[in-house]
């Protein structure tokens, strides 16, 4: 596999300069504009995502938070008429630079969707799929190890250990979502994007996923879109509030929910008509 990721010199310099003062950001976005045809969905978004933390993206429907999330692993590439401007860097490397291998990028930046979407395959094969196409396992034993570890990390192993050959679609909604998380972490990503990962789940399954997210942040950088403000407040350390395609306010989660600065953020988090 060719790993021709072209380095953007200016971005590297920026991250290095930052490194002198603090831990470098895992993902940096600068001047990001996104257009769907003629319609502009994001307007000059600048947002830096710190490593090993959970960053929540909040905002009303249509504010651009999911669009932004999808820029981070170039999921928007497959949307007709979608155009992304600006610079998004992963570890200082521009992911929109020419020659970037998108498949490799999406292995580094995994994604979990709103609705659990396991493949119509066995539980085992759901998790093994990614490592197989990326050639991460040299033998059957290797693959077993990857599958078991991923299921363990996703907090699902104990529930499915004796039925790895059963179809993934036969699991409950919450289990399916954890299967999708296991599938995402099987390819050893660095960043996990979650687009409303709990909105289709009951409170117990939601609590399990939240618990899991808290554990996963030790090893991964997590960026999550959520409509539940309580969930954002519970699981994230950083929060960014989007409104009408603009990034209105970002900061420590506790500050955003206890003393937001911008009037639009105040109105949104307190449930007022903005």
């Amino acid at each position: 596999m060719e790993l021709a990721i072209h380095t953007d010199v200016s971005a590297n310099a920026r991250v290095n300069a930052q490194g002198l003062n603090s831990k470098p950001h895992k993902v940096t976005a600068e001047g990001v504009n996104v257009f769907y045809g003629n319609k502009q969905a994001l307007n000059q978004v600048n947002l830096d995502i710190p490593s090993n933390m959970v960053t929540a993206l909040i905002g009303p429907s249509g504010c651009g938070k999911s669009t932004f999330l999808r820029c981070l692993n170039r999921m928007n590439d497959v949307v007709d008429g979608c155009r992304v401007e600006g610079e998004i860097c992963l570890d200082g490397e521009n992911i929109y630079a020419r020659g970037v291998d998108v498949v490799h990028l999406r292995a580094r930046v995994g994604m979990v969707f709103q609705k659990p979407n396991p493949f119509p395959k066995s539980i085992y094969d759901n998790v093994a799929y990614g490592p197989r196409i990326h050639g991460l396992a040299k033998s059957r034993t290797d693959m077993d190890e990857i599958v078991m570890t991923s299921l363990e990390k996703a907090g699902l192993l104990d529930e499915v250990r004796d039925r790895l050959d059963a179809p993934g679609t036969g699991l409950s909604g919450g289990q399916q979502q954890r299967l999708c998380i296991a599938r995402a972490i099987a390819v050893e990503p660095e960043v996990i994007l979650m687009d409303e990962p709990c909105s289709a789940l009951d409170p117990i399954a939601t609590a399990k996923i939240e618990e899991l997210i808290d554990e996963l942040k030790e090893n991964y950088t997590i960026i999550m879109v959520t409509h539940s403000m309580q969930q954002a407040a519970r699981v994230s350390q950083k929060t960014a509030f989007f409104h009408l395609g603009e990034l209105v306010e970002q900061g420590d989660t506790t500050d955003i929910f206890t003393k937001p600065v911008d009037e639009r953020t105040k109105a949104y988090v307190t449930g007022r008509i903005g």
Partner: protein
Amino acid sequence: MEHEHIVSSFDEDLGRLDSIIAEMGGLAERQLADAVDALSRRDVALAKKVIESDKQIDLLEEEIDNFTIRVLALRQPMAEDLRAVVVALKMASNLERIGDYAKNVAKRTLTLSAMEPVGNATQTIQRMARQVQSMIKNVLDAYGAHDLAKADDVRMRDEEVDLMHTSLFRELLTYMLEDPRNITACTHLLFVAKNVERIGDHVTSIAENVHFLVSGDKPADERPKNDLSSQTIVE
């Protein structure tokens, strides 16, 4: 905040919290005024009325307790709303304590009214109480109007109360040294003075909570304190 909540009954909830606090505050202010008035006029009937009326404040505190728990559980307030609910809960507790101290002043008034008056101490206590009353009034205004400057001003004025308390302490010690027969009355008066001084501390705590309600932060600077009664000796 100028905008209304999408769920309009939430606005009604917050409005109700405000009005219960206003009612409690008004009652607490009047209880202190009546208690000290009864003390200086040796008015046993008024003192009994103060003791009786404390129940009203206790009931309102209970109402705030139950109501804030309900609002927290059902609305899960955020940001300014969260501060409003938490501050109401804490203020209710402060106001209830203020009511208790006023009641205690009234109880001691019943005892003191049966004794010979001692010196001018009750006048000093009255002056001190007037200062504390105006602090209560101002802090309630600051709460109602979300007035940060006014809340901070109240917080700074507790120093004057502390100074008066220290001077009362010296005065009462002097009376006791002069004539041991004054000891019983003076000891009760010491407690009365201490009660009024403690009310001042609760008002200061309310002022700090109003500061937090409006700004989202606790007051950063140390406030001046000048209660030297704990180190006072009369030789």
